[in-house]
């Protein structure tokens, strides 16, 4: 079973000096925080804020690469969580065939946002996550931590 998730925003995690991409489901009942590096967060935030950079950023280039031969990103699925690392798959449609490509969630999400493709998460990942450190994180979260990226 998979659940569609929406990219709600980015937060800075000062304890790990990293960023957290916050995914939530439609009902806002489940949340999936994904820790990413600074440049990965930048690639996602630029897309969330609808900023058009003067030169194509890496994921814009990635999209052009797929567009060149009409390959389409159908969806992105966060498939697994193992030892604090999330795994994801990008599903492509190209000439009536579907291809599944392994990717880091940060790349997958940055590309999905640029391709208007839906992001899903395996329910097992959502469950797993909720049993990990998430609870203590949520306790410490303040609304202002979300900054202007929270929509």
């Amino acid at each position, binding site marked *: 079973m998979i659940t569609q998730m929406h990219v709600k925003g980015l937060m800075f995690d000062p304890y790990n000096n990293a960023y957290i991409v916050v995914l939530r489901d439609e009902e806002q009942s489940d949340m999936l925080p994904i820790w990413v*590096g*600074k*440049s990965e967060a*930048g*690639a996602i935030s630029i897309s969330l804020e609808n900023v058009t950079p003067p*030169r*194509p*950023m*890496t*994921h814009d*280039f*990635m999209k*052009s*690469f*797929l567009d*060149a*031969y009409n*390959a389409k990103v159908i969806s992105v699925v966060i498939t697994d969580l193992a030892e604090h*690392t999330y795994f994801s798959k*990008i599903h*492509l449609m*190209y000439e009536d065939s579907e*291809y599944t*490509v*392994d*990717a*880091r969630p940060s*790349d997958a999400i940055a590309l999905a946002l640029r391709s208007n493709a839906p992001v899903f998460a395996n329910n097992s990942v959502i469950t797993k996550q909720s049993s990990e450190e998430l609870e203590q994180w949520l306790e410490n979260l303040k609304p202002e931590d979300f900054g202007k990226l929270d929509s």
Partner: protein
Amino acid sequence: MSAVDLSKEQDLVEYRVDRILEEANTDTRIVVLARKDGVLDTFPIWVGAAEGNAIKLALDTMITPRPMSHDLIKSFAEHLNITIQRVVIADVKSSTYYAIVHIANKGVERTIDARPSDAISLALRAPCPIYITQDVLNRRSTTNLDAWLAKLESKDIGAPEVQET
């Protein structure tokens, strides 16, 4: 060389990535390209830290536990049978270099506009040759070179081998 009888291919000079220089207190890296044929000429390109690191990983043939962004692009190419043919640093405007990535699939060629950092990062992974057009080589500004030298000297990295074409 006379410009008149140069074919399109002869207008391209092949370079390789020689090294990546770090600028300690900035978020900047310098990608130093050197001529593939051994003629003494280096071509510096300033890139961001993340972009420089992506190139360094490929230059050092580091295998990361998870695919980095340009590994993913290469993976797309492999899945879709797209050949990454070459990258060309083809233009310079206001001190910004413009690259073109040439790809092919079933005999159909396409070109993609890219930042040189993405183009080089992908070229090292493909792998495919990196070219600079003679036009860009002719037009590279000496102010760039001067700035580069000044920075290098200030950090006492040692005398770089730089000569103009």
